[in-house]
């Protein structure tokens, strides 16, 4: 654990230098987007299918989860690749008395801090606009942390296999992340998708994250069993993803 914290310390020292820029892209833009879009377009929306909530209240938890996805994806692609191939941080770290798991867990803790802090500010600002209806909304924070790991861990594993070209990340972004953001219930209920397409939303981790966040911020929390199901599904992604990440890091770093 001390090793993972030492790795986290390195990440935080680096982040101290870049946090302003990253706060802008990971938080300020989505918040402006959600307020502009939620309030303006929201006034045109017939809310009868949104469980009696305003469109803004419907959109906010979805956008928080979606932002968590973006931050997690961003932190687990180029930065990971950079640490393997360019700055070679990981090579420096395994020459020191650190184990591979310290590298993966240290970076993952950093990522959770990034995701949770972004979600917290997002939640705070949008609550000022009346988009949050329950103290249970704080559950959004651990939910986004879990969603972040569920997304980032398998992407870590993938990033560890990428040599040279980073086109793969742009590909992932365009063909997985963006479609997931559009079709996993962030902007409208999945039930309004054609029946045949709905399973695609159900298998995406984002939808489960959105559902947890929505249950937490809305006055009606829905079924506890459904919630536990969402948590279990995300945990599965996180655990399998971490296992894969450890395996790929080991392959890449110890020949």
């Amino acid at each position, binding site marked *: 654990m*001390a*090793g993972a914290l*030492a*790795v986290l*310390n*390195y990440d935080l*020292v*680096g982040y101290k*230098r870049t946090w302003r820029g990253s706060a802008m892209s990971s938080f300020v833009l989505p918040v402006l987007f959600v307020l502009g879009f939620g309030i303006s377009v929201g006034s045109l929306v017939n809310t009868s299918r949104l469980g009696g909530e305003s469109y803004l209240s419907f959109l906010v938890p979805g956008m928080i989860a979606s932002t968590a996805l973006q931050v997690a994806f961003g932190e687990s692609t180029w930065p990971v690749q950079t640490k393997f191939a360019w*700055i*070679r*941080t990981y*090579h*420096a*770290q*395994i*020459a*020191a*008395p*650190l*184990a591979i798991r310290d590298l993966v867990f240290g970076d993952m803790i950093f990522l959770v801090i990034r995701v949770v802090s972004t979600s917290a500010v997002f939640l705070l600002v949008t609550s000022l606009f009346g988009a949050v209806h329950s103290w249970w909304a704080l559950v959004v924070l651990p939910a986004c942390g879990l969603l972040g790991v569920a997304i980032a861990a398998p992407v870590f594993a993938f990033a560890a296999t990428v040599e040279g070209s980073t086109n793969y990340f742009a590909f992932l972004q365009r063909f997985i992340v963006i479609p997931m953001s559009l079709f996993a219930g962030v902007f409208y209920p999945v039930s309004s998708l054609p029946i045949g397409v709905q399973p695609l939303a159900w298998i995406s981790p984002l939808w489960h994250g959105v559902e947890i966040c929505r249950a937490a911020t809305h006055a009606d929390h829905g079924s506890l069993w459904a919630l536990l199901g969402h948590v279990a599904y995300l945990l599965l992604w996180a655990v399998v993803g971490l296992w894969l990440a450890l395996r790929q890091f080991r392959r890449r*770093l*110890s*020949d």
Partner: protein
Amino acid sequence: MPVQSPASSIAEHRVAPADAPLIYARSLVKRFGDFTAVNGIDLDVRTGESFGFLGPNGAGKSSTMRMVGCVSKPTEGTLRILGLDPAQHGVEIRAKLGVCPQQDTLDTELTVRQNLMTYARYFGIRRRVARAKADELLEFVQLAERADAKVDSLSGGMKRRVTIARALINDPEIVLLDEPTTGLDPQARHLVWERLFRLKQQGVTLVLTTHYMDEAEQLCDRLVVMDAGKIVAEGAPRELIERYSTREVLEVRFPGDDQAPYADKIANIGERVEVLPDRILLYAADGDAALVQVTDRGLHPSSVLVRRSSLEDVFLHLTGRTLVE
């Protein structure tokens, strides 16, 4: 003295009954698929020794260093570092090593001090201790005034010195330097050598790889010459030169593209002759006397150099090739 290991403690180590080598290898092999990078080498490096691997690119030096650094698993053979098996005790061993890798792994966006401080944390060194240690080491590598500069802004030689300082942050028992001066300009190389020489004088155990014979001669008490994954010779630099070469070398160049016909005419003057594309090396105890014999035979080289034998000659003799192509 900025770095640990006063001479007295080294002496104590030496008289200790278990005078086991710090690095011990027998029949060490490293394969990557079909390619055999290291092909059955034996090593014994003792406390306070400055030990070198000399060889051309691809000889297996770096693969050996990575195994010794416990970041690469041996395919076959026995390896013990500080008496421990890297397969089981990698983390414990690495806690006592200082590593200066071939390619810099500094974070160029952080300052020099931040690089040292974050690295110190990997060894569990407390903040305050790390800060003092970083200042001391930057003094040692003559970069104290650049402590708060971004690594990005430093020259290649300065970055190298930061890496060396970083490698010393944990008072290592062994410092591994993989081609410490490759790619540096002559002035920067001399500064690095001078610092490494200071470390050696302080009794720090140095293990380094190089394809520069002058580096090996200056820094190594003992070295192995590697070629194609094998050790082809072992000994002190002077010893190797005495064993495999003559005291002096006469280098002659004859007009024209083909040196070989001249080689036949002078071959029996020295002990041995090597024909290179652009000159002939004549190995003899007395180079000037050999030159007199050459001119006595009516041959007049367009240029002439008499010099002492070097490790380059040893390498050429053992492998038929020069070190740096």
